[in-house]
């Protein structure tokens, strides 16, 4: 493996659904000689794109797991993570962005900046990932790159600057004008593999001159030399422009925009040049870890292979040869045969096989140096774990993991399916922290939880295909929560004297609403409750959280403060105080005006304007609050906040109401109190279920 860190790029490709990022990745791999034939997403040849390695992905034309791959371009090594575009899988996008140094934001020349692009952009901001934009599908009817650039500026607040202008548009799209070198770039050969540079066609010369002026004007802010050269009207050398663009991009103060059509094999090679020129190498990016020995003080990591190791496992996959762990090495080097420590568990691990991934094929390598992405075999760990050299106490900051908002009960059809299902769930829950599974003893069902209907659908489908586990699914359930709305006091005595050793414990204090899920505050002074029983009290309170007294939903946002209590020299015990805490919680909870909260989703519907009224009607019927409607020419985007409980089956209803012309995206926004009428319905349902169970 080439050791020069300046020549490494770890990049991601992020975009809205159907913007064509998998197609783009396919072309990149072809031009960098990683693959020798091009297969399209949902292609007629039935092979599917190389990056969509899972059968299901190929069938649905969506990318689910981010496959990591690497390629070489112009003497540079590029590691690419192909990320899913659907919001239900954002944890994958988040994890990819955490380990990447730069990203390509793919936008559709027709659709422009769509709601998912906004979400992805916010994620990029969170992880401070510099990006370049690629306006794809310039050959489509209705393509308008200028409008997309304007949207990048207005909707996402990017200082988007076009480095190219199209030669011809829609069906006449032939290539691009390179505004830096002032050349026309066209593509020929069966798969666009030959790049021709030539004079700019007469028809676009004036436009090109004007666009170059705008480019230089925007870029000059990042280079004094360039400003001087412009003012003195000297010839401007190309490297000077490239350097200024790179500086702006790395600071995230400039977003270079390129364009083309991946499907028509146009504009991909200049994009690869741009990746090499403008996106950062690992040493350009500052990464920090936390020093556990020094009160979690941040420590800067240096991409030097001679230093102690700091690496992050960002993705797990269970393959036929055991667990494959995708890893990004930030500092030091992970070599075959070396020993590393899992910072979370403290366990020492000997590194066996080290590989470099190319979609679902792999190549054995000797080591992963600092700054690189690779994969390890046979290492037991969870996603998000940090690996360090023995003796080091560093840990990478944890990644933001959203909580599941929807659950579904699954029942295996037979014994064989049951065994396979548990194997599958074991793997999926390890791979995806937003996917959870547990067994409900009351209903004898396995419950899976995730980020949306599609998210769960995909896992159920994968169980069927990859593990041969036939399961029947129940109706999706919303993850309701209970919380309290006012402060309430409790003073509870647990007393039992029924022969044998008695039980005694008294706990007094109050409950109050808080922001965190649960806070336990011990304000007892003078030993009213002996210190050894305080953890028992906390345990007792915690036991009550799993199933709220109101309707049996998990309780969140409660602060328990204990201020007083009493104990008995003989009869007080761990059990007695746990029971007392449970009683105290029940007592306080009822007085604290408990309410039910439900997940509210941010729903954005893109629809042709003629269906605007109908779509708003649909959202309104679903207890949706419409925030606004945005005019986008032929289309409009309706933004609304809708309870998740009302969103089941929305895609079918939306399709039939709009002749299949509208699409929507949905993501979790917040938890909100449910209206009384809905609470009454829930209570009725809960009572019925109880009756049936009895």
């Amino acid at each position: 493996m080439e050791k020069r860190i300046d020549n490494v790029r770890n990049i991601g490709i992020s975009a809205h659904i159907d913007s064509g990022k998998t197609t783009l990745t396919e072309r990149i791999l072809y031009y960098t000689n990683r693959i020798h034939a091009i297969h399209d997403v949902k292609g007629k040849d039935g092979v599917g794109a190389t990056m969509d390695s899972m059968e299901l992905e190929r069938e649905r034309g969506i990318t689910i797991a981010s496959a990591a791959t690497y390629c070489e371009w112009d003497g540079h090594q590029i590691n690419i993570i192909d990320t899913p575009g659907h919001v239900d899988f954002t944890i994958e996008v988040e994890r990819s962005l955490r380990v990447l140094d730069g990203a390509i934001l793919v936008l559709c020349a027709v659709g422009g900046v769509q709601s998912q692009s906004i979400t992805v952009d916010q994620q990029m901001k969170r992880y401070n990932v510099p990006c370049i934009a690629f306006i794809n599908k310039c050959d489509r009817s209705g393509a308008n790159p200028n409008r997309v650039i304007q949207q990048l500026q207005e909707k996402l607040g990017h200082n988007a600057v076009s480095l190219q202008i199209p030669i011809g548009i829609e069906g006449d799209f032939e290539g691009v004008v390179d505004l830096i070198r002032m050349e026309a770039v066209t593509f020929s050969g069966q798969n666009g593999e030959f790049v021709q540079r030539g004079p700019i066609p007469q028809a676009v010369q004036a436009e090109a001159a004007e666009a170059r002026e705008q480019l230089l004007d925007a870029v000059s802010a990042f280079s004094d030399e360039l400003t001087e050269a412009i003012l003195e009207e000297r010839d401007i050398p190309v490297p000077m422009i490239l350097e200024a663009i790179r500086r702006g991009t790395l600071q995230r103060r400039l977003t270079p925009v390129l364009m083309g059509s991946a499907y028509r094999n146009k504009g991909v090679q200049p994009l690869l040049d741009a990746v090499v020129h403008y996106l950062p190498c690992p040493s350009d990016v500052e990464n920090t870890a936390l020093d556990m020995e020094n009160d979690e003080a941040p420590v800067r990591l240096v991409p030097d292979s001679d230093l102690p190791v700091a690496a992050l496992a960002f993705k797990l996959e269970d393959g036929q040869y055991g667990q494959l762990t995708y890893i990004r090495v930030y500092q030091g080097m992970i070599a075959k045969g070396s020993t590393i420590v899992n910072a979370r568990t403290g366990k020492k691990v000997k590194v066996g096989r080290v590989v470099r991934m190319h979609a679902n094929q792999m190549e054995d390598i000797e080591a992963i140096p600092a700054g690189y992405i690779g994969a390890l075999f046979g290492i037991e760990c969870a996603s998000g774990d940090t690996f360090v050299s023995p003796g080091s106490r560093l840990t990478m900051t944890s990644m933001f993991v959203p909580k599941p908002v929807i659950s579904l009960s699954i029942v295996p059809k037979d014994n064989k399916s049951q065994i396979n299902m548990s194997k599958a769930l074991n793997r999926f829950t390890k791979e995806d922290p937003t996917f959870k599974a547990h067994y409900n003893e009351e209903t004898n069902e396995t419950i899976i939880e995730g980020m949306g209907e599609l998210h769960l659908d995909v896992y159920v489908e994968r169980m069927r295909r990859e593990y041969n586990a036939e399961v029947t699914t129940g109706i999706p359930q919303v993850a309701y929560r209970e919380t309290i709305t006012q402060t309430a006091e409790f003073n509870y005595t647990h007393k039992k004297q029924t022969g044998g050793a008695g039980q005694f414990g008294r706990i007094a204090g109050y409950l109050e609403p808080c922001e965190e899920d649960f806070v336990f505050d011990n304000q007892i002074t003078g030993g009213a409750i002996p210190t050894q029983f305080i953890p028992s009290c906390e345990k007792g309170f915690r036991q009550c959280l799993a199933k709220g007294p109101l309707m049996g939903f998990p309780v969140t946002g409660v602060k328990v403060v204990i201020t007083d209590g009493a104990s008995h020299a003989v009869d007080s015990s761990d059990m007695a105080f746990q029971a007392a805490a449970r009683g105290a919680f029940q007592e306080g909870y009822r007085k604290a005006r408990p309410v039910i909260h439900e997940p509210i989703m941010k729903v954005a519907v893109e629809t042709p304007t003629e269906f605007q009224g109908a779509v708003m009607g649909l959202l309104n019927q679903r207890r949706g609050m419409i925030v606004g409607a945005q005019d986008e020419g032929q289309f409009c985007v309706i933004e609304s906040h809708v309870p998740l409980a009302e969103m089941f089956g929305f895609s079918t209803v939306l399709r039939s109401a709009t002749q299949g012309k509208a699409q929507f995206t949905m993501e979790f926004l917040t938890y909100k109190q449910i209206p009384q009428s809905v609470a009454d319905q829930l209570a009725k349902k809960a009572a019925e279920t109880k009756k049936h169970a009895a």
Partner: protein
Amino acid sequence: MLIADAIQKSPIRQLGTDPKTMLKPGRFGAVVADPGMGKTSLLVQLGLYALLNGNPVLHISLNDPVHKVSLWYKELFRHFVRKYAVEVAADVWEAVQCRRFIMTFQVEGFSVPKLRERLTDITEQGIFTPSILMLDGLRFDEGVSEILEAMRALCETMQWSVWFTAAGTPEARAVLKNDPFDVVLGLRMEDKTVRISVEKGGGGPVDLCLDPDTMLIQRFMGRAE
């Protein structure tokens, strides 16, 4: 302090008891200033004030996307709550959001028939019926008189009053002198402070300015240091 008390104490009351009562149904008001002075923030505060008084507001923006307009309201509400130490029940902001509807158009795509069509969609289904409109970003250039005429006809029928923002060009100022503009508020830079003045109508001179940190309307306390 309760929200009702905060509204009573807020200096915005100098401009009138409520932006709705400042304008009669079917009449227009405007905020006029040079670019970058804070027209949108003043307009949003008028909208927020109307919302807190229980009036449904339709905010139409020709420049900003929905989420940005929404952010303007949220931020100014947050600043307002913090400044007056208001104890807000969680449902106050909820209620404000429910009474507000944001519509955005591309500047070149805006026309009154289009607005009428889109509004009919909403009002007929009972989703939203505004009583006051905020129109941000309309260009007061050649074609504006036709738009204003059509807007006037629409608003007279529907009994809506409208607040506009206008760049401080001579053409705009000339239009604002005419009927149906009853109230014109101006923003101008004076001693490093953005002062608010009543250029037409209203209840008389005011001593208000915009807080440079929060853009909230506040009483003018003399020259800035």
